């Protein structure tokens, strides 16, 4: 008996591996998505190892090199305060990734249970949640986040909170919609008739079937949050100097647009690359995970 069981276990493992291999194959066939993944991962790695990679601290000033061009000492030059631009870019990556990832996680953790409850139990709970979500969705994401950040006060943590809260309505709508659709699947009444309670239905039969959608929504929310963080910081509602972020770098570079365009170009390019990479990766992931795609 034990031999049979272990054989079966081996088969199961093989099966999961086969499915993963198939997904990987389909993913690798999308060069843009692969590039997106590589670049996005690159940013994440830089963010994690920022202390090792950055030549100087974010606040380090070199008064002998103000608005200096690239040199062996300052690879990307320095800004008006003598900050090393490369170092500030690297520390800024950390701020962006932190805000991007954690605000999205926050939104997901808060919104998914709410959306699922609304979709599963319907009735007045659903009515209240859905209408409230609609009202929040009527505000553009950034306006909402800017308003919240203004109320909460400027800091990295508050920017994360503001952007996370701003992303909640979108997540609620997705979770609710998926739940509404999945609760009508035949395996739900089948499970009910096998004696399953509501918790079993929700956690075993609905949540696992919407993970694909949630993964995709996550990878598409992160770039929005990254961009949002840059905007908040640019407006002075996010990361505060001497801490570095791409948004604050842009803000600091603004007066020197005519003299030192490179100060705007570096953080600008970083923002574009990061947002694009996550978006393209998310798109590719959606195509791969959607069983209806044939390629």
């Amino acid at each position, binding site marked *: 008996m034990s031999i049979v069981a272990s054989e079966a276990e081996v088969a199961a493992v093989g*099966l999961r591996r086969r499915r993963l291999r198939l997904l990987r194959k389909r993913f690798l066939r999308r060069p843009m998505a692969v590039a997106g993944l590589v670049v996005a991962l690159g940013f994440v790695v830089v963010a994690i190892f920022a202390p090792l990679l950055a030549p100087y601290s974010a606040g380090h000033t070199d008064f002998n090199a103000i608005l200096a061009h690239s040199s062996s000492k300052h690879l990307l030059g320095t800004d008006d305060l003598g900050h090393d631009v490369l170092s500030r870019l690297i520390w800024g990556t950390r701020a962006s990734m932190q805000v991007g990832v954690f605000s999205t996680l926050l939104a997901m953790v808060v919104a998914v249970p709410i959306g699922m409850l609304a979709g599963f139990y319907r009735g007045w709970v659903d009515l209240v949640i859905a209408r409230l979500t609609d009202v929040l969705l009527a505000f553009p994401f950034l306006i909402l986040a800017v308003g919240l950040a203004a109320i909460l006060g400027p800091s990295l943590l508050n920017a994360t909170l503001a952007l996370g809260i701003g992303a909640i309505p979108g997540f609620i709508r997705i979770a609710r919609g998926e739940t509404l659709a999945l609760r009508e699947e035949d395996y739900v009444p089948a499970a009910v008739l096998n004696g399953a309670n509501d918790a079993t239905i929700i956690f075993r039969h609905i949540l696992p079937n919407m993970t694909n959608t949630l993964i995709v929504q996550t990878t598409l929310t992160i770039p929005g949050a990254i961009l949002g963080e840059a905007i908040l910081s640019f407006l002075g509602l996010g990361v505060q100097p001497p801490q570095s972020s791409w948004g604050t770098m842009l803000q600091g570079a603004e007066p020197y647009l005519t003299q030192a365009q490179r100060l705007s170009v570096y953080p600008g390019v970083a923002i574009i690359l990061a947002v694009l990479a996550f978006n393209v990766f998310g798109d590719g992931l959606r195509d791969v995970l959607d069983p209806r795609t044939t390629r």
Partner: protein
Amino acid sequence: MRAEPLLEVNDLSVRFETDEGPLLAVDQVSFTLAEREVLGIVGESGCGKSVTCMSLVRLLPETAAVSGSVVFGGVDLLALGPRRLRRVRGNEISYIFQEPMSSLNPVFTVGNQIGEVVRRHLGVSRRDAHRRAVELLQLVRIPAPERRVDEYPHQLSGGMRQRVMIAMALACDPKVLIADEPTTALDVTIQAGILDLMREVRERLGTAIVLVTHNLGVVADVADRVIVMYAGRKVEEAAANELFAAPQHPYTVGLLGAIPRPGERRERLEEIPGRVPTASAPLARCVFADRCRYADETTRTQVPTLRTVRQDHLVACFHPEAERAA
């Protein structure tokens, strides 16, 4: 003398509140199910046979108003609290759906899903549940059960999936198995296999089965007793042999006449003219009156009650075959 029935349904009525007003789907249906018995419920689409079965296990949406009683093991299932109801569902009364293709959760292996039911009701370990799943797959004659148990639903054919559904339904040795059109979505050859399996389940496990179908051939094949439903009412009930040998209700006669038989060349099969009526309240007439060739004044103004016209043969008709012939 008949033994105490396993399941007793009394005056079951189901009414739905729809946008077009109330709809009476089941009108005062009563029947019993004995141990080890296979009871067939036949009728055309919309006659209330599925709704009847769903109300036995309380699967109907909240818009449905159910009255009457469903007595099982001395308690009325219709009055049971949610917790006790869950202990009955899948444990003592199991249900098989028409759609085997979509009744399994796509993200878990079939063994995992069968095991889920076993663990819920019998509280055994994961390992034992897995072992039981293999046993059950063997019972429903799935080849190489040790391998199949770890496969996902999409790797199985429709017939296999229906076997898995049956395995899941049998997981806790239920006393009653309700099968709602279990073969309708399957190929004819696969159907025969599933029916054989149901027969075998009854023989080996002694499970009583309620078999809902619109296919009279299926009923003739496996059922001991048959209930014919029409427009929400039970119009005829008899032992399977008796029903096919001497149908009493003109509707049943019409149904049997509509079955093509090999070797009998006819231009056109017999048909029953007209359409099934829908009602918002109990009709004060025979529900079949509009389509019946024997309809008269009585049929249109009075409700026929069920009465015994032959031995163990109930019919709700003013002009049953037996009396017309006489």
